[in-house]
């Protein structure tokens, strides 16, 4: 073997033409036509990449640059084969196209299934201490900035508290629940679930309700959020999504970066709708198993939407599904669980249970 190239001494910008040869005793270097005083000790060879010259670096910090096609691959006893494979893939449009298809499929699968699964697993292994801290922190914030103390009479809250305790009695083995009453202030009729099991219901929501089942249905919905750790999952999904964006987007420049981030925000709305659906389903199941009307809370939602002149349509910008969609989904779920609207057995079952 005999390769021509450019030789750079260590720590000098001077380049000189050189030849590298291998004989029985090892490598020898001819720089500017003169034999290099010592036999070069080869330390590394840069990987193949496009048509870039290969760079042979020696132990003393000097360097020999040789053409891309120079036969230098056998010179090191252990040269990583991996990048030879990468280079071979990169050299062909056919393999590049295959790589493109695989990448798109994998990204789609990761995004659709991998991310939610990973978020769920991460939420499941998050220690309760963390959700407890998040619970306290959020409660502190909403109490300071949104809510006022409840103005409901003691009697009314005690009644709802008792109903809620009955509803969650079969569920408290795995999770503690705490029900709090607050004046909703500017957010009006609403209920929120905090990750540690605290559920806040506003006076306005209770005043708007026409039956206990309506209130309990909403509370069961919030129980669903807590049980399935939706707030933690939301945090992890958002983190995973931004990681995916960084990985796939790389250094794509500010404008592209911003646009992708806006798309990611739209995606978190979609995630939120997905969680609302799941919580609705859970609410229906809890209400049915307690012998209560699982659709009552949808009536209450309708009244809230009407009051807030909100839309009953699901759009890309909604955090919650539209009321019409929610009613249809809840009805389907209730029917699947064997519940029917005017069955007389419902009442008797309830009576029997108590």
């Amino acid at each position, binding site marked *: 073997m005999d390769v*021509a*190239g*450019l030789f*750079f*001494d*260590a*720590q*000098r*910008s*001077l*380049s*000189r*033409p*050189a030849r590298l040869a291998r004989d029985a005793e090892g490598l020898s270097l001819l720089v500017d036509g003169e034999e290099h005083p010592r036999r070069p000790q080869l330390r590394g060879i*840069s990987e193949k*990449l*496009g*048509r*870039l*010259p290969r*760079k042979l670096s020696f132990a003393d*910090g000097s*360097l020999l640059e040789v*053409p*891309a*096609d120079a036969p230098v691959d056998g010179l090191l006893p252990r040269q990583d084969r991996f990048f030879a494979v*990468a280079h071979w*893939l*990169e050299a062909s449009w056919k*393999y*590049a196209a295959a*790589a*493109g298809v*695989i*990448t798109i499929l*994998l990204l789609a699968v*990761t995004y659709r299934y991998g991310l939610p699964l990973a978020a769920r697993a991460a939420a499941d292994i998050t220690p309760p201490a*963390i959700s407890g*801290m*998040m619970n*306290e*922190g*959020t409660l*502190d*914030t909403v109490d300071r900035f949104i809510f006022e103390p409840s103005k409901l009479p003691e009697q009314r809250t005690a009644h709802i508290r008792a109903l809620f305790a009955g509803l969650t009695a079969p569920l408290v083995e795995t999770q503690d629940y705490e029900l709090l009453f607050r004046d909703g202030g500017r957010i009006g009729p609403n209920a929120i679930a905090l990750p540690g099991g605290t559920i806040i219901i506003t006076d306005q929501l209770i005043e708007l309700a026409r039956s206990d089942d309506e209130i309990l249905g909403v509370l069961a919905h919030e129980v669903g959020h807590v049980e399935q750790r939706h707030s933690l999952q939301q*945090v992890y999904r958002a*983190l995973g999504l931004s*990681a995916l964006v*960084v*990985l*796939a*987007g*790389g*250094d*794509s*420049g*500010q*404008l*592209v970066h*911003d646009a992708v981030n806006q798309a990611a925000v739209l995606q978190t709305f979609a995630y939120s709708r997905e969680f609302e659906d799941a919580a609705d389903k859970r609410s229906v199941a809890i209400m049915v198993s307690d012998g209560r009307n699982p659709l009552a809370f949808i009536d209450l939602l309708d009244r809230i939407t009407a009051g807030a002149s909100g839309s009953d349509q699901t759009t890309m910008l909604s955090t919650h599904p539209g009321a019409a969609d929610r009613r249809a989904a809840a009805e389907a779920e209730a029917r699947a669980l064997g519940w029917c609207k005017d069955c007389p057995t419902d009442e008797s079952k309830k009576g029997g249970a108590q």
Partner: protein
Amino acid sequence: MNNGSGPQPTDAAAPLGPAEPFVFTGSASEYYRIWIVNLMLTVVTLGIYSAWAKVRRLRYFYGNTLLQGHGFDYHADPVRILIGRLIVVGTLMVVNILSQTSPVFLLLIVPWLVALPWFINQSLAFNAQMTSYRNLRFGFQGAYFAGLGAFVLMPLLAIISAGLLAPFSSGFRANYLGSHTRFGTAWFDTDAPLGRLYANLGATMFFLIVLAVLVFGGLMLESRLVTGGSRDDRVAIFILLGVISFYISYFLVFYAYRAGVRNIVFNTTTLDGGHRLSSTLSRRRYVWIMISNALMVLGTLGLLWPVASVRHWRYLAQSTHFHPAGPLDGFLGRESQKSSVAAAEYLDLGGFDFGL
């Protein structure tokens, strides 16, 4: 040396013209395949390969950027990059979750701002050390308080003054970056004159006014022409168009300003006292390339990203010249100081842009 054409004559014999161009020999079609293989391996390995992908990407761009026939090179060890990235991602996750537990943790922004100059200095030092030309490494020797001024205080001042002090901030930062960078043992020096930076702001303002008239006129025309649909729909479309054109205009103005700053900064940068740099970006052309690149990438859901990337890099390279005062084979190297790969990866993953 390129295209396997064999060794070239020694530098002493190379002609020393007044302006040596930076030449980019990469191609979009070649980089496209490198990019897609990088992306596939990154996704298959759940992101671990991203460190190797980064090194390969930068080696491709640096290696294909030639000055006097010699390419630049990027030397970072992917394993170190990976470790840096893991530290960054882990820290960001912890901070993110903590900030969910209590708003008190939002106060972390204060120590973050205090530490930012250190991060940036370490990052610049790492990236400079990993870059070489003719087997000599670059270097960056930061200073904390100058960095605090360049990256925290001056930008704040520029924002508070609604951009009126932006040239002051740009100049301070460019001078800081330029004067703390070295090639081997030879120091760069940048002395961007404030007057020219303000002239650049004026030219940008003119550009902004023209743009504002166009956008405003376009929106007015749109409100006249579109008459179908309900009133709510028309208002919604009008607002949407307004927001999008405002956003794009912001970037147009930003790039127009930046092109001017780059020219001024490069034109007032010297190496080792005698060698000079120059930059001849055309404001309009640069803005056009940046905006059309962004639209091209978004329109193809990222599939043309490598094409846009090569186009941008090539334009920057061909608009940059080196004016040697003598042969370039007399530079000497020196040992590198310590620098933090985690800081470099933090700024890289966060999309921090030095604008040069």
